[in-house]
């Protein structure tokens, strides 16, 4: 019997919108995301303003650190409130947000290097980019949380609860991230 070779198709030209957060990202995707955060920090640490080694792990420490510190709290309160989504979907929402934010961070590396080399404003720009990364990443995570709840067949009240929970968790993560960032940069 002849072996049938699987046909690996090229991605479509017009890539369709692909919803994420439906499951956990692969280890490779998360590692790529963490690598992006580390690379952005390294790009911000070098440049015309001189070497600032403490900024190198700063982005990774601030983003991933804030998620690690507040993620368990989200899981606990989520279960405590009796919401429908499975815990792995909740973890998946956070992991996807981290992976996607890391991908964006990797994309921002040339932009950051350009400004670090040609201006004295490297650290300032890095702080701004970090705020943007945090904001967009948290928005993605919040959307993932609400989606997970909706997919699990939650009632209207539960959906309202998860929206409130997501908002409160995002605010907490932002504050923890700011505190971590302040400690790294100070």
């Amino acid at each position, binding site marked *: 019997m002849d072996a049938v070779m699987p046909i690996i198709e090229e991605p479509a030209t017009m890539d369709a*919108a692909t919803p994420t957060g439906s499951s956990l990202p692969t280890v490779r995707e998360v590692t790529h995301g963490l690598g992006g955060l580390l690379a952005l920090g390294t790009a911000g640490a070098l440049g015309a303003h001189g070497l600032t080694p403490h900024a190198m792990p700063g982005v990774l420490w601030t983003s991933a650190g804030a998620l690690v510190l507040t993620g368990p709290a989200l899981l606990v309160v989520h279960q405590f409130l009796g919401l429908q989504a499975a815990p792995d979907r909740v973890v998946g929402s956070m992991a996807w947000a981290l992976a996607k934010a890391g991908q964006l961070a990797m994309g921002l590396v*040339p932009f950051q290097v350009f400004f670090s080399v040609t201006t004295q404003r490297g650290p300032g720009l890095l702080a701004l980019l970090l705020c943007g990364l945090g904001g967009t990443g948290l928005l993605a995570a919040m959307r993932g949380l609400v989606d997970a709840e909706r997919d699990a067949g939650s009632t209207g009240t539960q959906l309202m609860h998860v929206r409130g929970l997501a908002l409160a968790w995002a605010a907490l993560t932002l504050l923890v991230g700011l505190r971590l960032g302040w400690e790294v940069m100070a």
Partner: protein
Amino acid sequence: MTLIHRAAWLLRDPSGLVDHVDHDTHFAEEAPRLLGLLALGALTFGAVVGGFRGGLQVPFAAVKLPLLFLVPMMLVLPALRGLWALSEVEVSYRRLVTAGLVGGARTALLAAAAGPVLWLLFGLIGYHLAVLCFVAVLGVTGLPGLLVVARAVPSGGRGRWVALAGSLTLMAVASMQTGWLLRPFLVRPQSDDIVLFRAIEDDVFHSLGTTAMSSVGVYRYDLVREEVYEQSDLRGTR
């Protein structure tokens, strides 16, 4: 003839051209043509801008203008992909590069078409107004190019406005700093100081701050003089 057909296509139906070029067999063939059209348009526009001073500034500005179109695009394309991915829209690098090339070439051709108007204006207005006109032409012709990139992104996803606003902000900031690094494009007619590039001093944000202060009547040398007076006052009181 092929170039003329491509120019007509990218001006009439840029989205159709993006779909055509974003294909395995077409990309390698069409990308150099689009790059050629971009360079041609930008060179023409640059020569007109350099013509404000004339002489060696004409080739200098003509050579630098294509870089002003290409460098910001290269810097922000990877970030754009990440931004759209966060909005749950997966778009390939090839499609983004294609859209960037089509958008850039469209802008360059439109800017070249605005060249004669700008050249006429240069004969009537002073240096500061000429700089404003140059920036205005770039802004007006840049918008159709940016729209090509925005429309090339597949539909769907959520929070598209975040990705769109982020893309525009990154593109604008990168273009501003690139323009600052590549200056001067316009040189005062009476100036003898013609150089290809000026030394890196401060950055575009500092320059914008100084210009904003100047526009309300506070000039840099006023600030320096005030500081000197304050220091001499202090010495006098001692």
